[in-house]
């Protein structure tokens, strides 16, 4: 069993001081109240001493007792019990079965001679029920058989308040409130003297051993049980603490929180009430008195008085921690809460938790350690500093003094065990990750994040990148050196980027891609760089690496120019001319870039359009003439070219037409001719060269887009004329003509068409066209007739209005007043508004409109 040093035993009253050389005198009882120490002896003396405590630096103390008075009580019997009632300034003395009251200072009996007679033993109620501060409650075991009496004791009088009988003869008593805890002949009981209700606790044998009944606190007693047990019992008759295990022959017990102290013939033993373990054993021979007085524990042999001086709890806790007994230390610390001032306790307790945390940590009990660190708000750097090289060189941290633990570093702690070391590192990783965003980190975020970065880098942990791409406080120089050491170049780049050193970052990544340095973090690092440059606001940087990215891949590299976010584009930081110059060496990239300018950004600049068309054309030509067949197997580039030629109006048509001449690209030629409004040429190419009649039809539609219907009609008529014109394959074209007429009847002027058609064609052949044309014609006629009718009706309405206005006469007399100026008319000239209002001509001229009728009036 591991031991704790909780108490030291010091002498208080030497034998010589007490009894000189009188050999046969024994100490029978002791009382201590404040600095006053009273000793009752077998020869009926009471001795009064003053105790002087001299604290020693080691946390203990020595005592010197100065003799004050001694007085003989006038009997031949021993003084069997002494109790002080300091509020009354009285000492209660049991001698010869009688309790007398004597003055605490003078040791004189009270003049009234008040006493309690017939007492075998007594106990003071430390939890009195009366509430009167100038009264103590005393409970006695009466000389009357099986009787307990309760008295109120005042300064100079006593008063019996209750007498209760017990089922067996009581041998010892303790009292708390209304509850008596009694040792009877065969068992312990709790007896409520107010209600008379008794509760059995447990049996014991009084013949085998002397009972012990000791009040240890509010409503709780300590009893000597069978088998040397120290049993706890509450007034409710239950046990709330597990028993402590004493020796069989314990004669006295006392409590000095959190310890239970027991005395037997040879030893003083100390058990903790918190975990029931025996903590200390002090050899002490022939002791027969052990009592605690307001926290001071006194033991006595028949010849001398000694004090058990408790070591300061802090010292005890430190001792426990030193022997790695964390659990016990914490229990003791928590238990000490109520004995230490709050402020002091909190500081102390925090420190203890931290120390305990480090002990758990050293034993790799990480869960426990974490909880202790967390609850004690440990300065995380204390922990980090255990790991070599983790704290940044610039950190101002020094470990707290006195140290929280005994370890220089992790190597010492793990004794070089790599596995343990790795575990410790994993723990620190998770712990730092948890605390870095809490208030614990305030003030030293740099230290924490830098340490975390180092751990991640060393362990090749994925979170390294997460750390670097989110808000962090990693110190640049320290972290950079570490990342370099562990070949985390990609991460190092991220670190540079986070510290606004994009140039360094990109250079590093480029080196990785080039294979100058090795880091396989990202397999798509090239794309990453392109992406990075695309979103970089640093133009210099983009220019610097443009060639590099383009050399790697024209299509992807060009994205640094083409995929730039729009917001930046508006600032137009990149001049297209510059880019194009740069891209001259990279035709594929150039095409992409021009596409970007022409298609995505819709820049209306002839040069780009022409250039793009030329590049397409070159490509098409390069791909060879095989591609120039009929529509179906058009290459992608060719499709793009055609699309551009059709949609754009900005390129130089003649220039392209020259280039295309003889290249065997009829479709493209047709489009270009169309751009020049040379429709007949274009259509001839489509019809005669390509024989693509649907393309010819599409051409008509395309070119007439947004034009007026006659323009469109003209185009279709041109096409029809070409179909009907003389040529080698007249039959095929005739069919095409018929189809065209039948399908596009609405696009033609039927009258004109009929004149063009050869007379040999059957009506059957052109039936759909003719029907369409007829229906159209009839429809037109009818619509026109309706319009005519409507116009006529409208005209009639106006005529009616005019007639109505002209039909009636207007009477003007001097009773009529001008509606404007309210004056009579003096001349037969007036203006009349359609609503009948009459005004002067000059008034009407002054005001053009009548308020009630906005239309101009008819003058009469």
């Amino acid at each position, binding site marked *: 069993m591991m031991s704790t040093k909780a108490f030291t035993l010091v002498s208080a009253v030497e034998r010589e001081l007490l009894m000189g050389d009188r050999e046969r005198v024994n100490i029978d009882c002791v009382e201590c109240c404040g600095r006053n120490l009273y000793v009752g002896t077998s020869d009926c003396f009471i001795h009064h001493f003053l105790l002087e405590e001299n604290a020693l630096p080691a946390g203990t103390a020595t005592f010197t007792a100065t003799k004050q008075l001694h007085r003989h009580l006038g009997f031949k019997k021993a003084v069997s019990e002494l109790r002080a009632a300091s509020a009354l300034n009285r000492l209660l003395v049991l001698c010869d079965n009688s309790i007398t009251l004597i003055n605490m200072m003078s040791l004189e009996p009270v003049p009234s001679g008040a006493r309690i007679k017939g007492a075998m033993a007594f106990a003071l109620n430390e939890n009195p029920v009366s509430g009167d501060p100038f009264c103590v409650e005393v409970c006695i075991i009466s000389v009357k058989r099986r009787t307990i009496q309760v008295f109120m004791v005042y300064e100079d009088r006593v008063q019996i308040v209750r007498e209760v009988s017990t089922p067996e003869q009581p041998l010892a008593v303790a009292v708390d409130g209304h509850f008596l805890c009694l040792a009877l002949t065969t068992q312990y009981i709790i007896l409520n003297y107010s209600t008379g209700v008794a509760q059995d*606790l447990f049996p014991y044998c009084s013949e085998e051993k002397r009972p012990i009944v000791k009040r240890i606190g509010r*409503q709780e007693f300590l009893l000597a*049980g069978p088998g040397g*047990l120290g049993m706890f019992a509450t007034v*409710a008759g239950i046990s709330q603490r*597990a*028993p402590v295990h004493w020796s069989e022959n314990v004669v006295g017990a006392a409590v000095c929180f959190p310890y239970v102290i027991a005395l037997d013939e040879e030893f003083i033993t100390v058990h903790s009430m918190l975990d029931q373990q025996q903590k200390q054993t002090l050899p002490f021979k022939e002791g027969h008195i052990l009592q605690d007085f307001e926290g001071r524990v006194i033991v006595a042999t028949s010849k001398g008085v000694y004090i058990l001086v408790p070591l300061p709890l802090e010292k005890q806790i430190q001792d426990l921690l030193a022997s790695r007994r964390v659990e016990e230390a914490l229990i003791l610390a928590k238990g000490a809460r109520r004995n230490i001032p709050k402020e002091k306790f909190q500081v102390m307790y925090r420190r203890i938790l931290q120390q305990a945390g480090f002990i758990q940590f050293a034993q790799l009990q990480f869960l426990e350690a974490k909880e202790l660190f967390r609850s004690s708000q440990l300065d995380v750097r204390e922990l980090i500093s255990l790991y070599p090289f983790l704290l940044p060189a610039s950190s101002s941290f020094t470990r707290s003094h006195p140290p929280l633990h005994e370890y220089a570093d992790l190597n010492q702690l793990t004794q070089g065990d790599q596995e343990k070391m790795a575990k410790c590192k994993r723990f620190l990783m998770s712990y730092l990750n948890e605390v870095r965003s809490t208030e614990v980190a305030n003030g030293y975020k740099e230290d924490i994040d830098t340490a975390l970065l180092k751990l991640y880098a060393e362990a090749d942990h994925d979170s390294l990148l997460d750390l670097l791409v989110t808000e962090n406080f990693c110190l640049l120089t320290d972290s950079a050196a570490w990342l370099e050491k562990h070949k985390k170049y990609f991460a190092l780049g991220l670190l540079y980027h986070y510290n606004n050193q994009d140039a360094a970052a990109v250079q590093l990544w480029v080196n990785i891609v080039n294979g100058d340095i090795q880091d396989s973090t990202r397999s798509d690092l090239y794309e990453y760089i392109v992406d990075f440059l695309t979103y970089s606001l640093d133009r210099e940087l983009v220019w610097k690496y443009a060639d590099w990215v383009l050399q790697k891949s024209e299509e992807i590299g060009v994205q640094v120019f083409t995929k730039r976010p729009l917001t930046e584009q508006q600032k137009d930081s990149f001049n297209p001319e510059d880019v194009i110059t740069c891209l001259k060496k990279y035709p594929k990239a150039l095409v992409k870039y021009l596409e970007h300018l022409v298609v995505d950004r819709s820049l209306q600049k002839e040069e780009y359009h022409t250039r793009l068309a030329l590049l397409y054309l070159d490509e098409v030509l390069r791909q060879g003439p095989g591609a120039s067949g009929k529509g179906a197997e058009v290459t992608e580039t060719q499709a793009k070219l055609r699309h551009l030629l059709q949609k754009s109006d900005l390129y130089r048509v003649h220039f392209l037409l020259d280039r295309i001449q003889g290249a065997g690209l009829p479709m493209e030629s047709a489009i270009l001719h169309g751009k020049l409004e040379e429709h007949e040429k274009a259509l001839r190419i489509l019809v005669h060269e390509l024989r693509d009649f649907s393309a010819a039809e599409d051409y008509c539609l395309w070119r007439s887009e947004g034009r007026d219907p006659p323009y469109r009609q003209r185009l279709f008529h041109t096409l029809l004329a070409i179909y009907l014109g003389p040529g080698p394959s007249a039959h095929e074209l005739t069919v095409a003509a018929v189809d065209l007429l039948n399908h596009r009847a609405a696009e033609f002027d039927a009258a004109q068409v009929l004149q063009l058609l050869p007379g040999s064609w059957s009506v059957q052949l052109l039936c759909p066209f003719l029907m369409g044309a007829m229906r159209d014609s009839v429809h037109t006629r009818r619509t026109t007739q309706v319009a005519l009718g409507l116009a006529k009706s409208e005209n009639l309405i106006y005529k009616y209005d005019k007639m109505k206005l002209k039909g009636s006469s207007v009477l003007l007399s001097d009773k009529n007043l001008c509606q404007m100026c309210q004056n009579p008319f003096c001349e037969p000239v007036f203006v009349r508004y359609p609503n009948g209002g009459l005004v002067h001509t000059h008034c009407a001229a002054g005001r053009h409109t009548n308020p009630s009728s906005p239309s101009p009036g008819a003058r009469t």
Partner: protein
Amino acid sequence: MRKPDGKIVLLGDMNVGKTSLLQRYMERRFPDTVSTVGGAFYLKQWRSHNISIWDTAGREQFHGLGSMYCRGAAAVILTYDVNHPQSLVELEDRFLGLTDTANTDCLFAIVGNKVDLREEGATESQEKEGHSPGTAGASPKVPKHVRLEDAMALYKKILRYKMLDEKDAPAAEQMCFETSAKTGHNVDLLFETLFEMVVPMILQQRAQGPVQTVDISSYKPPRQTKAGCCA
């Protein structure tokens, strides 16, 4: 110290494995234990309640303490050793009387521990039977092991002893367990079944207010209008 909300007490003859059962449950291990002196207890947090579990000493010497430990108990676990029929008999003879101080609605669980030893023994005896098939069933001596039915019979007896209606009390099938602290067999089931049943009792008790404890701190002495010295 946290005050427990409810109490469960382990009773039973010495050496049936009370301490081992509790250690298996609380600490998930099966260490060698020494004979328990006096008693010990653990606090177990179950839901939001603190339940104290008392391990008592089976030795005759500490028998007298049993009543006090049982006082106010919400549940009592009566433990025997399936390999020692006498330990079941002892439950009725010696330990049942201790539970008189428990709550009136106290639950009883009867637990036969050390089933791991019975299984070992069973395979041995089977082997024996294999060797001498003729003797099978010929010697109905004292039963070597306790059968679960015997425990259930005891449970019903206890209900009668407590004058409880079988219909109101939990069924014997539910309250009789066979466990092994060594292998952990049924140990969690035992304790957790009891916790589940004890928690509603705690809540009910709370609703009714304290029954067992007399709170003297709230006691107010009748005001006496005696003329004091300063009156």
